[in-house]
């Protein structure tokens, strides 16, 4: 049987021109429907009752519809739009269409469930839903982007998954450098807008819709080859791209009118910074540290005790720079003291011992209350009333007006934490691509061979461990002032509030081990999902478990793959490589489909 014909025929037998026309028409229909009323009452959040302009979830649907339409029109080869799809042409349409149907369907479902029945839907919602369904069905009639030669007759699910594959984009046309820099700036501007929108989502329905549409849209952009183009440009102008990224991050507080979401952003930054520090230990050196949050705690407690709070056992008040240095130093000492005996162990044993030390820290701090031990940390009550920072009269606890923008108190901490994160990013990238970074990776790959190459395994591992501890300690010193209270229960192995060891590890693995942007994105997602979807609190850990299993199954390298992991898990472009990932995927989906 010539399987090629099987693979290249679309999932649904619709003639390609008709399919493309119907996709465009469906997307346009949904796009139009977002300007109509979707429900009769303003009881559903976001006010979807207005005819004339979209609101709330309608905006997200509008974005999905517009994206689908653009990709479809690019498929027609319309001049000026072809740059949208340098890689795959039809798979991004399918993905965008699925995202569109996802948001549309979710909105219709949420309205029906919350308001009690489908009668609450206005005709506009029905038009949108029908449009979205037409879009998806028609997009499945578009031909595949990539021929896949396989020996077996594919099941419908396999066929569907194959239809989402897309080739890598070819060589881009040379652009003038100002245009490329402009693209970088625009991309980070859009990125800032998307992230800000996510942090600012006011109600859970909107956040779910946001997750659905961004998830599909970003995948569609990847399949279209736009992300590959963008990353090619950012590697070309690396320093400009990094500067643009941090500039975009620094702009965030200026987009906020209240402190409510800035606090979330500060906590995301703390979480992300610590996750990035952990990534040195886990991602580069391959040391599975399950007690990493303890170092954050060491930094936070050190800063708290020298902050001048009345609850401190030491009546001293250090200036902030001194307490940062002290926090870093104390964490470093703890890192060395814990690392020196434990780093002689390998693999699982190290994980168990670090897990133990993490818990020992929490319990010890809980007992240094003057009853079961010397009075240092006030035991379970923690150290409250940590004063706000004050730099030369610039009080971090008050709002300031900068450039005509009113910035709340947390914006100060946001900027401070951003600096800490820049430091960690710098340390990670510089250490990672150097002699010591290579030694870490070599140790992770094969410790015996690495020592035979002259690497002092123990020393190099201890440096990674201590460096990770120090970076976490620095983040901890800022955290103490942001939270204004430190208690032992903030530094548990696993708990519902993000910076804990299990979540940190999850952020690193979810985002992508050994990368910089991976843990940042992982941390942002892992912080925002529980913060935004509080109704999920009971099922949160179940959800994470499921998400991690699915991720490990379909994208073992994490959301962001580093160059090595990409080659490791998806090695298709190279010589002498059996197409094992492909074979693995197809056999796996057969099982899933059966």
């Amino acid at each position: 049987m010539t399987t090629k014909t099987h693979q290249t025929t679309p999932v649904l037998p619709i003639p390609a021109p008709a399919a493309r026309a119907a996709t465009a028409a469906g997307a346009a229909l949904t796009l139009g429907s977002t300007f109509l009323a979707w429900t009769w009452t303003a009881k559903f959040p976001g006010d979807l009752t207005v005819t004339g302009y979209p609101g709330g979830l309608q905006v997200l649907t509008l974005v999905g519809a517009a994206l689908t339409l653009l990709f479809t029109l690019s498929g027609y080869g319309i001049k000026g739009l072809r740059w949208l799809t340098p890689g795959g042409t039809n798979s991004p349409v399918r993905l965008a269409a699925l995202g569109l149907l996802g948001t549309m369907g979710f909105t219709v479902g949420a309205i029906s469930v919350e308001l009690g029945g489908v009668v609450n839907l206005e005709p506009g919602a029905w038009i949108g839903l029908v449009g979205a369904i037409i879009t998806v069905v028609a997009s499945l009639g578009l031909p595949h982007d990539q021929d896949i030669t396989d020996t077996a007759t594919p099941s419908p699910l396999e066929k569907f998954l194959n239809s989402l594959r897309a080739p890598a984009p070819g060589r881009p046309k040379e652009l003038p450098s100002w245009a490329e820099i402009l693209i970088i700036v625009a991309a980070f501007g859009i990125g800032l807008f998307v992230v800000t929108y996510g942090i600012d989502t006011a109600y859970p329905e909107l956040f779910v819709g946001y997750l659905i549409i961004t998830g599909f849209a970003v995948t569609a952009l990847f399949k279209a080859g736009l992300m590959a183009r963008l990353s090619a440009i950012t590697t070309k102008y690396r320093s400009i791209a990094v500067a643009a990224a941090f500039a975009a991050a620094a702009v965030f507080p200026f987009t906020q009118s209240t402190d409510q979401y800035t606090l979330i952003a500060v906590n995301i930054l703390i979480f992300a910074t610590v996750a990035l520090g952990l990534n040195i230990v886990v991602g580069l050196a391959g040391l599975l540290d399950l007690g990493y949050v303890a170092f954050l705690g060491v930094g936070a407690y050190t800063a708290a005790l020298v902050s001048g709070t009345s609850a401190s056992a030491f009546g001293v008040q250090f200036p902030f720079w001194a307490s940062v240095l002290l926090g870093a130093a104390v964490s470093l000492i703890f890192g060395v003291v814990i690392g020196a005996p434990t780093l002689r162990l390998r693999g699982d044993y190290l994980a168990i011992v670090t897990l133990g030390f993490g818990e020992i820290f929490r319990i010890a701090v809980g007992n240094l209350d003057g009853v079961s031990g010397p009075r240092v940390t006030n035991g379970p009550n923690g150290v409250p009333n940590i004063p706000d920072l004050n730099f030369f009269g610039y009080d971090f606890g008050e709002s300031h007006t900068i450039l005509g923008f009113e910035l709340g108190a947390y914006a100060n901490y946001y900027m401070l934490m951003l600096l800490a994160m820049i430091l960690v990013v710098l340390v990670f990238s510089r250490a990672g691509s150097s002699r010591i970074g290579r030694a870490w990776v070599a140790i992770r790959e094969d410790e015996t061979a690495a020592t035979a190459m002259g690497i002092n395994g123990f020393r190099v591992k201890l440096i990674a461990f201590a460096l990770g501890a120090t970076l976490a300690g620095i983040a901890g010193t800022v955290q103490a002032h942001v939270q204004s209270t430190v208690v032992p229960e903030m530094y548990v192995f696993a708990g519902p509030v993000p910076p804990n060891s299990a979540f940190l590890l999850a952020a690193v693995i979810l985002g992508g081990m050994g990368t910089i942007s991976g843990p940042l994105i992982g941390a942002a997602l892992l912080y925002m999902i529980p913060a935004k979807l509080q109704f999920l609190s009971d099922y949160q850990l179940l959800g994470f478990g499921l998400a991690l299993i699915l991720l490990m199954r379909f994208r073992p390298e994490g959301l962001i793959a580093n160059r090595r992991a990409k080659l490791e898990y998806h090695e298709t472009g190279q010589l002498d490589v059996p197409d094992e990932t492909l074979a693995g995927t197809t056999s796996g989906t057969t099982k899933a489909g059966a």
Partner: protein
Amino acid sequence: MNTMTTTTPETATTVLDASGVTMRFGGLTAVRNVDLTVKAGEIVGLIGPNGAGKTTFFNCLTGLYVPTEGKVRYKGTVLPPKPHLVTQAGIARTFQNIRLFANMTVLENVLVGRHTRTKEGLWSALLRGPGFKKAEAASHERAMELLEFIGLQDKADHLARNLPYGDQRKLEIARALASDPGLLLLDEPTAGMNPQETRVTEELIFAIRDMGIAVLVIEHDMRFIFNLCDRVACLVQGEKLVEGSPGEVQADERVVAAYLGTPFEGDPGADEVAEVEAAEAHSTTRTEGETQ
């Protein structure tokens, strides 16, 4: 080939001097009182049947094991019992089962081999001064030279795990050479290779010797060993049975015996054999009789 091997000067300095090396694991003596010297510019072969203790002896030389008794000297100094210090001193090795850093690129593998010959620590990496950049550039240059030497310069950006088997073996040698060793220990460098690949490896090892690096090689391929080596030592059950020129070792009947076993001397079991044969003949005729 033989014209190339006769370059060893008799007065060459001793690079490796292992004397009385004994390695015991509990009650098992894996290596017993082995002496071995390798002189500069020499290729020495180490042969012996499986389980003779060759790799254990290698591990004693490279610090992976600390010998229970005996001393290993490299250029006159006693080697420290730590693998990374041994590499630092100037002994590099490859492994019997390839141990590349599978998920690093070919170039990175060789760069890791440069570790002992560069000094840039964490601070230097973080501050990125001019010294750091110079050292990195020099390391890259040296690594690319080595890749050219083994003919893998075009695959520098490939992952090590994606290389074909023969190239992985070569890369392991390049990685070992990156530490600028005075002595290279090769543990079965041609295991699993076809005759052509073995020939190529042979040339490679001669080229390494011509770079002024002494080579000690474990191998089972006798043609390879006897072509290549200036001197061959045979280990049997942890003891050095014989050492000498390839011709001597090849002719030594103890070596043949160790590999193939000895014929019975004076037919000690002839009676038993006759008895068994008689019994077999008897049973055959009986079964034939029963079936008829």
